Structure formats: C-alpha cells, structure tokens
C-alpha cells in the first residue's frame, strides 16, 4: 500500500490515497469544525465551516471535499480561517433560536460545539423574527423548522442511506426549507419513520418525541426481524428511555428501522406484561406463586409418556433458551416432538 504524506498544522502525517483533508485531520486528532459532514454520507461542502488554508491554493477550500495530494501543506487554525468561520456562524445564529438552556439538544448540539470552539459570545447580526411551522404529524419525532440550519444531513440521509427520498430542500434562497413532496406533513408523505435523519440532525430540528436523557447505555440485539441489528438501549431509573443504532455490528452498521428505533420500550414496559404465574381454576386464570406453578407443571408433565407430549419453542427466544428447551424435551420428557415457527 502506498501512502501520501501531508502536513497539517506543522505535523507530518501519512494517509491512504483518496483520503479527504477532513478525514486526514480527524484521523490525526486535529479538530476541524463542521456541521454538514457525516461519516456515512458523501462529502457535501455545504456548511463552509471546514474551510482551511492550503499552501499554493487560491481561496480557502472546504476540507471535506478536498482530496489529499502528496506534500500538501494544510493550516486549519489561522486567523483568516477563523474569521470566515465566525461569519458563517453569525449568519446561522441570526436565524436560530437562542433558547439553549431549555432546548432538548442542550449540550448535545453540534452548533453549540462549533460556536464554543470559535469563541462566539454574542450575536453580531440582528435576529430574524420569522416564525416557521412545526411538523408534529409523525408519532415518533417532530420537525421544528425554526431550529433547522439547512445542513442537508437529513435529506442526504434519506437519499444515500435509506433510498426513500421522502424529504428534499424546496424553494430557493432565504425561503429554502426541508420538506416533502407537495410540502405535505411527514405523515402524508412516503416517509418510513426509520429515524435515520433524526439520528443525524446536529441541532434540535429533528428530535424524537418523549426524549429523555439516559444515564447509562447497554448494547444488545433487536428482537424484531432476522436482520439482527445491534442497538444501544438508553436506561434511566431502571427503564428503557431511548434506542440508538449500534455501529459496532456489521449486520446493520448503526442503522435501524422504525420498529427497532421506536417500537421497543412500549412493548417491553407495557402494563399488560405478564408479571406473575397464572393457574386455571374453575375456568379462569388466577395468579399463583412460582412454587405452585412450577410444581404443578413438573407433576403434570411427569404423568405423560414422551410420545404424548409436544413442545413448541420460540424464534423470539435466545439461543440459550432454545438449547435448554430442546435438551429438556429430548432428555427429560423423552420426545423429539419439538418445533417452533421457523416455517411461518
């Protein structure tokens, strides 16, 4: 493998051909502010925040769209670069609500990160007062256009990642906005509610409803279809409060569908969950103790010969559950009458 050498902020680094300046900087631990870049999406060059100085190049190219060439000399931290970046942020925040403390994305907002990095402490342009609509139609997430910074991560996600193309930028110039075909609410569009756009929104434009910050996360595997997406369940006070796609599994590479992302907590923590063993007495099921329930099952099953018993195991249960139940059928009940819904 041949490598290219380049110099970023007076540090020599080596990268593979085809690497962008942004990727090279990130790989070497150099921070470059961006709002439209996403590791899963093609370089876009839209937000203009990742501009850098490159020796011998006119103007300031965007790091995300500039491919590294041999002996390139890059500077990401000059005053000229910062000045341009600050004017980009000035324009964005002129149009952005300043209610950070009460915003759902507070401390998880990438616009805050960039503004803090650039040392923005005041508004330099007058606040625009245009109130934009909120699309509340989807049961799982809200699109609040007042927070939207038009980075197009959502529209590019809906194109490049999911191929659904439910949302695009409509109109021109200052009237530009993210919307659906015919400017209809999301629920009346072809949106599949997978939430991939919500996962990538850097600000509070696309946010999950009923979102509560978890205090811990645990990685597990989705219980719906056979794709086997791994997910991180966010836990707070002993309850599941959020779900994110996990990037560690090659089964899904961080992606999820609507059922995985929004269909877990409601069924796991549903009030109708069975919480106690039940026993049929005079034709109604009434609550009983584990001790009694297990004893009755053991006693009843012992009364039959193997060929009088059938066991139906479950494709919803774990490998360990299934291994144990087939071992139980074969070695304790003495029957091979064991099956599950593989065929259905």
């Amino acid at each position, binding site marked *: 493998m041949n490598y290219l050498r380049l110099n970023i902020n007076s540090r020599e680094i080596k990268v593979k051909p085809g690497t962008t300046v942004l990727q090279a900087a990130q790989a070497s631990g150099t921070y470059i502010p961006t709002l439209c870049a996403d590791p899963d999406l093609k370089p876009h060059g839209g937000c203009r925040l990742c501009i850098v100085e490159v020796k011998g190049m006119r103007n300031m190219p965007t790091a995300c769209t500039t491919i590294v060439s041999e002996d390139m000399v890059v500077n990401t931290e000059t005053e000229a670069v910062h000045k341009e970046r600050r004017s980009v942020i000035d324009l964005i925040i002129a149009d952005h609500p300043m209610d950070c403390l009460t915003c759902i994305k507070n401390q998880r907002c990438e616009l805050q990160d960039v503004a803090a990095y650039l040392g923005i402490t005041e508004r330099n342009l007058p606040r625009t007062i245009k109130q934009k609509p909120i699309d509340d139609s989807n049961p799982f997430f809200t699109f609040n256009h007042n927070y939207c910074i038009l980075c197009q991560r959502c529209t590019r996600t809906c194109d490049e990642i999911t191929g659904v193309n439910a949302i695009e930028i409509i109109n021109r110039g200052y009237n530009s906005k993210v919307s659906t075909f015919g400017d209809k609410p999301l629920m009346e569009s072809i949106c599949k509610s997978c939430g991939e756009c919500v996962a990538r929104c850097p600000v509070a434009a696309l946010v999950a409803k009923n979102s509560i910050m978890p205090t811990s996360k645990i990685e597990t595997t989705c219980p719906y279809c056979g794709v086997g997406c791994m997910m991180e369940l966010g836990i707070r006070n002993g309850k599941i409060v959020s779900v994110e796609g996990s990037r560690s599994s090659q089964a899904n590479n961080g992606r999820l569908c609507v059922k995985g992302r929004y269909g877990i907590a409601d069924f796991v923590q549903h009030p109708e969950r069975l919480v106690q063993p039940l026993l049929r007495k005079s034709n109604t099921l009434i609550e009983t103790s584990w001790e009694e*329930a297990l004893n009755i099952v053991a006693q009843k099953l012992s009364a039959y010969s193997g060929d009088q018993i059938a066991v139906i195991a479950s494709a919803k249960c774990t*490998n360990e559950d299934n291994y144990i139940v087939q071992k139980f059928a*074969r070695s304790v009940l003495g029957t091979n009458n*064991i099956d599950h819904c593989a065929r259905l």
Partner: protein
Amino acid sequence: MAGLATTFGSGAMTNSNNDLLGANCIFSIGSNTTETHPVIGFNIKKATRSGAKLIIANPRHIELVRYADIWLQHTPGSDVALLMAMMKIILKEGLHDNSFIMQRCENFKPFKQSLDDFDLTTAETITGVPLGQIVEAARMYAQNGPSAILYAMGITQHSHGTDNVIAIANLAMLTGNIGKPGSGVNPLRGQNNVQGACDMGSLPNVCSGYQKISEPSIKQKFNVAWGINLPTEEGLSITEMIDSILQGRIKALYLIGENPILSDPDAGHVRKALSTIEFFVAQDIFINESVELAHVVLPGTSFAEKDGTFTNTERRVQRVRKAIDPIGYSRPDWLITCQIAQRMGAKGFDFEQPSQIMDEIAKVTPSYGGISYKRLDKGGLQWPCPDLKHPGTSILHTQQFTRGKGRFMPLRYKPPAELPDKDYPMMLTTGRNLFQFHTGTMSRKVAGLNSFKGEEEVEIHPKDAERLFLNNGDKVKVISRRGEITARIKISEASSPGVIFMTFHFAESPTNILTNPALDPISKIPELKVCSVKISKI
C-alpha cells in the same frame, strides 16, 4: 431450508448482509425486503445506486419495484415455472458457467433433461409474464455476475416450497453464482432468532448444529453428553402436532413465546386443538389468543431483561444483554425450563448464567465450537466457527459445498394445492407490513406503530373493486373453504387483478382462518401464500 440442505448441504444464507453491496446484480424473489427486512432493504437500494442491476419477481408492486431494472409480476405459486424458464434460456444461450458445473457440481444431466422437457410457452401461460421479460431477466442475472439471489417466505410458504428453493439453488449453480463475494443464495429469516432456534435444535429431527438424531454416532454423542438415552424416533412438526392433539395422541403441550392461533394456517383447527388438550402450559410475556387457553401460564422475560445470544439471518451470533430488571415476577425462559427440569429430577440443568449454557452449546455443536461470551463481547461471530481461533465464516461454500459437490435436482412445475374456481374465484396471498410484526404481540403494544397501520386491510386491484362495487374503506367478508373474516377494503394497484393481499398481524381479522394448511411434503411448511377466496360486501 430442506431445499438448500439437499442441494448445498446447508440451509442457511450463503453470504452476508453487507456482501449485497458488492453484487453486480440482485435477484429478489418472494421477498418484500423493504417492509420485512428494512435494513437489508437499505443495502439493496444502495447497491442499485452504485450501479447494480435489480430484478424483482413478485406478484405485488412492492416498494423495490421503483428501483428495479425488471419487474416480473408472476402469478402466486408459479415460481418454479418462472425459474425453470430462466434456466432454460440461460442454457440455450450458452450463458451458463460450464467449468463451475463440471468442477463443483453433480447430477447435471438429469437436471438438464428436466429442462428439455419443459416448454417456454407453457411458462408464459403459467406465470403470466411475457416471455420477452423472462429472457431479459435471465440474461441480466447470468451476464452481470457476481449475482446474488434473495428470497423469503414468498418462496417457502407453498405446498411445493422445497421445489421453489431447489429451483433457486439450481439457478445459482448453473451460473456459478455461489461461494464468492456478491453472489449466493440468501434466504432472509423472518424472526430475530429463527436461525438460532433452528441451529439450537428446536426442530423435530435434529439436535443443535443440525446433528441428525437418526444417526447412531450422533445419538451416542448426546447420550454421553447428556447422560440419557436419546429418543430416536423423529418428532412432529407444529402442524402435525395440532393434528395429533385433535386425534388424542398428544395430551400435553408446553408452548413458549408463540401464538399459533394467529400464525398457523387454518386457525379454527388450531384453536380447537388448544381448547381440548388435557394439559397446556404456556410461557410468554403477554396473554395472547393462544396463551389465554392454557391451564398454567408462566411469565417469561423480554429480550431486554435477560442475557443471551441471537443468531441473525446471516448466521451471525450476537449478544443480547440484560438492560433492565425482569418486569414483575417474570423470569428468563432458560431459567424457567431449568427449574421445571430440576423439579422433574433431571440432572444437567443447574446453570447459573447463560454464558455457561453457551459453553455447553459450543462443546456439543461443531459449528458453534469457537463461540464464547468472551469472544462475542468483541463483536458477533458468523458460524461455522469451529474453534476458538476461527474468525467465523462470512461466505459459505467457497472451496466446496458443505455436502461436497453441489447437487442439481431435476424439477417439475406443480400448481398450488388450491386454485381459484367458480365458488372461490380470487387468490389470497399474505405477507407483512413494515409497521407491524408477525401476530402483533409486540408491535401492537406500541401506540405509534398502530397509528401507521392499526387494522387489517384487504388490498384489491381497482378492476376487481369496480366489478364487486367496492369503495375504499368498505367492510367486506373474505371467505375461504376453511372460514371467514371481516376487514376493510383498500383499493390498490399493488396486486394484480384476481389477487388480494392481507397481512396476519391483527387478531380482529385473523387472516390465517382462511389459509390452507396443505404442507410441503419435505419441509412441512404450510401453503400460506396461496389460497382461494371469495369476497362479499357487508
């Protein structure tokens, strides 16, 4: 699965989810991937964006048709005829991979003979697809390798489902599209752990790792490992169990985490069996239509409350981790079964944690031999993974087939067990919707999902709707030889005239009251995808 076991020696998906991104041509038949396996659906669309050809064979106008180069809208149940026609064209035009056939496969002659006896104009009549389109699809699949085939229940849930699968396997072998990246025969498993439940031996004829109980060496191995005398008589499949209960031969049932009254064909028959059995113990997380008939109900935990593993459709074993405490007094399923076993005096059920169960699985199951929780904490592993150093297997049959040589199987087209006639003039086919899952036990507890799809809809072509004087939203009775249900009409050009479509997510309109329990003779899969019905307005 039986079809692939016969031809390749292994019934599992040959390649991997991400491997589809490297295919030059994807042929999807009998799978509505964007609704049933959405994240694999993303991969298919992504592949087409980077230039891969896409052929869709489906009786319905599914979402992926928008992305397809060719859409073959064949009549439900005519898959074998369609595939045989494609193979005949490939052979006739010399597009087959002769060296692959010679070196890697066997039994080619009888197979070729069966194609010689097959007539292309008959194929056109049976499938309803113009011959020109079949020719174009055959060329596209054969000439754009590596080509991957995807299929799901639209292929297997037929009274000749095994033949359908064999036809697919034949097509892949004929063009050498097996054992290399971007190719393969990829059955998409419908449930999170259907692959794992099969791997673990929750099947009537095999122990874990598909080790046949009929083989003396296997019996001996488990006799030693478990310290028992393994019963050698092959057990019953679910559909056969239901019959045996009604005949009085099966008297006790232990049902875990399933809802056969909604998921199995001819639901009336299943309900009768579960209502009359002498002793019925059910273990589940909710009361459902089946569980409510039990004599004892044991509360299991959901996936979020226990440790374990699932094996996904691409054979990847991945961790399930306990995120919250069991709800109420519910207990993990493995623990409940162990506690019953111990009360029956059995030894070998004194596990304290699921990792110890996995250690036993690895000991007795060659394909899981190298799998342990310690390794899985660094990421999933695809079986076969025979020892602790083995990195897992992303593509099967690379050097040789699991059974040695790939076996071509001659075929003959057979029609579905029940075809439309004077009394029941329409065809019903079934499937799933993105926003619900299987019998709805989980997904219908999620209010947001219900707002997308909250009740059954009978999808009917505008021509049929006009003929029957039906409007969108009209309530109708759908009647088959086995029963009747009511649901609302949704007029849609997704189906072809004469074919209606329903899901089986809703207990209020239990579609499987209508479906035909005619079984595939080998795989014992019922014909859920085709039955004859009539519709009358209420």
